[in-house]
């Protein structure tokens, strides 16, 4: 089985995995970083969103063999002490219902704000279109992103 050295949340991690293994399952099963969720396996729901060199990526459709030395950030590594403006805003707005999609929502939103610090409503809806919340926490997600953008 091939061995890969991955740069995850600022740490160098070695894993044994088949080349076609989606990064999602390497993160969850091998590195025990389970904040990144499985929802569809075909990049349609956004639950598995991580950052690859700062850009949002669906880890369920990103084979470990293609990662190379790119920097991977998961929800566990978004901030050192849960102090990212989005995490603060998520608390303040009590965003989650079941909570399962929220890591993916936050990671997509974090990439949006890094790119577009003052997003319009349309920017937000457009960036978040790939993230499903089955519970319908969308109004709260939107409010929280807007609040975080002001910080």
């Amino acid at each position, binding site marked *: 089985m091939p061995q890969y050295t991955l740069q995850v949340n600022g740490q160098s991690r070695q894993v044994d995995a088949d080349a076609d293994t989606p990064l999602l399952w390497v993160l969850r099963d091998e590195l025990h970083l389970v904040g990144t969720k*499985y929802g569809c396996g075909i990049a349609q729901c956004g639950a598995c969103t991580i950052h690859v060199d700062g850009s949002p990526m669906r880890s369920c459709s990103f084979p470990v063999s293609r990662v190379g030395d790119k920097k991977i950030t998961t929800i566990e590594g978004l901030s050192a002490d849960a102090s990212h403006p989005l995490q603060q805003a998520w608390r303040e707005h009590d965003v989650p219902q079941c909570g399962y999609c929220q890591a993916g929502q936050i990671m997509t939103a974090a990439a949006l704000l890094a790119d577009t610090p003052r997003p319009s409503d349309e920017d937000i809806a457009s960036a978040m279109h790939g993230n499903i919340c089955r519970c*319908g926490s969308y109004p709260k997600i939107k409010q929280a992103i807007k609040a975080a953008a002001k910080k």
Partner: protein
Amino acid sequence: MTSNRREFIKLSALAGGGAIFGFQVLVSCKTDSSSKMIEAALPDPDQWFDLSAYVKIGDTGLVTIMSPNPEIGQNVKTSMPMIIAEELDVAWKDVVVEQAGLDTDNFTRQVAGGSQSIRFGWKSLREAGAKIKHMLMQAAAKRWDADIASLQVSDGIITNSAGETLSYGELAAEAVDMEVPETVDLKDPKDYKIIGQGKTNVDMEGIITGQPLFGLDFARDGMVYAAMKRPDAFGMSLKDYDDSATRAVNGVIDVVKIGDKIAVIGKNTWAVIKGKKALQATYVKSASLESSDDLSKKMQEALDQLSDEPKRNDGDVVARMDEADQVFERSYEAPFLPHNTLEPMNFFADVTDDKVELIGPIQTPQWQRSNVAEALGREESEISIMMTRQGGGFGRRLYGNFVVEAAEISNAIRKPTKLIWTREDDMTFGPFRPSSAYKFKAALKDGKITGYHLTGAGVKMRNACREGFFPAGCLADLRIDSHSIDSNIPTGAWRAPVTNFLAYAEQAFFDELAAELGKDPVDLRLELLASAQKGLVGEVEYDTDKMIRMIEVAREKSDWDNRGDKHLGFSAYFCHNTYVAEVAEVELTEDGPRVKKVDCVVDCGLVINPKGAINQIEGGIIDGIGHAMYGDYAFEAGKGSMNNFNQYRLIRMMEVPEINIHFIESHDDPTGLGEPTLPPAGGAVANALHSATGKRLYRQPFVKELEVLG
């Protein structure tokens, strides 16, 4: 008579089960507003004292409250402990919440379903808190040799008439041996400090930092993974299979046949997903292979039949129809729907000679304990079930076929096993929201409704109607018939069972009926209710005064009477003991009609946690709009039409309207909110779409109808 604490409550081994997850559970309530302003909670104790199955108190005064019911996103893990904490009289910041496992000795109704957790728990949770408070006060009274009536309690501190204080932490060790009072006084609602205050989800920190809260996140050393291949259509059975390609997949450990299913066991999730895809299996027809079209025909035929046992039969509807000037008739039909919880079905099972340990997301742990006992031929006393946080329920996790599967696999291989359903499995193998159809007939004579006849038919629906709901009680001649269509497609409860479609059909019918009578649809409802107020016909489940108040408030809040050329649609419904009216506004855009806004009025009695309540209300409305607009699924030859989100359309952020919520202030006992805001949404949208487009919609999903209608 009083009883000793140890007789009152046997603390089961499971009640402390949070620890088996191996992650920090003491994260909960310390973050009520913002991370920068975290109110300091009491320090972690050296010793905990079990005062009941619900409450542990540490020597520092920190309090652990067990949340008995499954948490599926309805927020009971926050709201149920809030009720205990209120009567226990502790500061919410000093409370830590833990999920209890299945413990039928100490808890009742550990079920997430029917929006009933708060309603049924309201009295017992308050009493549970008040009894512990009384025991702590007894301990203080003994220490001071004082009369218990002379003591005051606030935020976990007891004060005597001399002004001396003792904290719950100082008294916990002694309180354990105090007598449990048989009866306790409960607080006057005006003294509430926690109930009615918006409290943040107790799992917030874990959710926003990616901690292992959910079933799919659970892992244990030595655990293997499993995926299951099932017959590819309902009505097919396994003939034979070739697992050589599967066994060649790196990481696959074993392949095990269990009845008609084949389990692939492996070292990680990807190995079993790949191994399952590589399985070559052939199936043979063993029962009928059904299609939605055939079932639809059967339902439509049934809608013209009077059943031998009508659900309700006031007066003589058949005679009223015969003598009417006109019979106004419309029918409506709904597709099957998968639940599509975002966390797919999964469960952990560890079956050994001594025990069966089950851990994962399930809405009905008690039921599954008996299912697993039966499937494995084990005693219920050997089986433990611990509930994890659940990535959505919507009724899907009421049905534990995946729990039984996990137990069967672990039983066969005798290893701790984690079963995962892929999304494709989850969307294909049900159970499903049953397809259903309704016909409404109103006898009209001299401009009045003289008879009302609802007939429902659904695929394996014991009762497709709700005979105690409005407009039952308002008309002397009203009949309700229900027919169940048999099928081998598995169906079951789906968020707001029955009413998730029935409410839309009825609210759309009222709108059209009012137009036929030349009346405002709000006036029509109020006229019917006014007649029920004068003389209710038979028994009903709703309160006419509350229905009227809700409708009048919705009329005012939505500015219904001054809607001008705005396209509004009105809907008002009672279900799950809660009253909800919704007024939707549709605007016409270049891309077609769009739901712009929903004004919602809710009467759910006393609101326990306004933050959680608002989330449930918004979620229900969005779910209702999403599925009415886009939810589509069908069967052909026993096989489902879609298996993932590239085919199945769920509502997304840009399709969500502005939502304004108005609570009707009430001191009545609280009712649930997980379901009741969903049913009125489809009707409000359909009626607003009619206003905007002139088109009536008789089937869901609406996007398909609008396409067909052009």
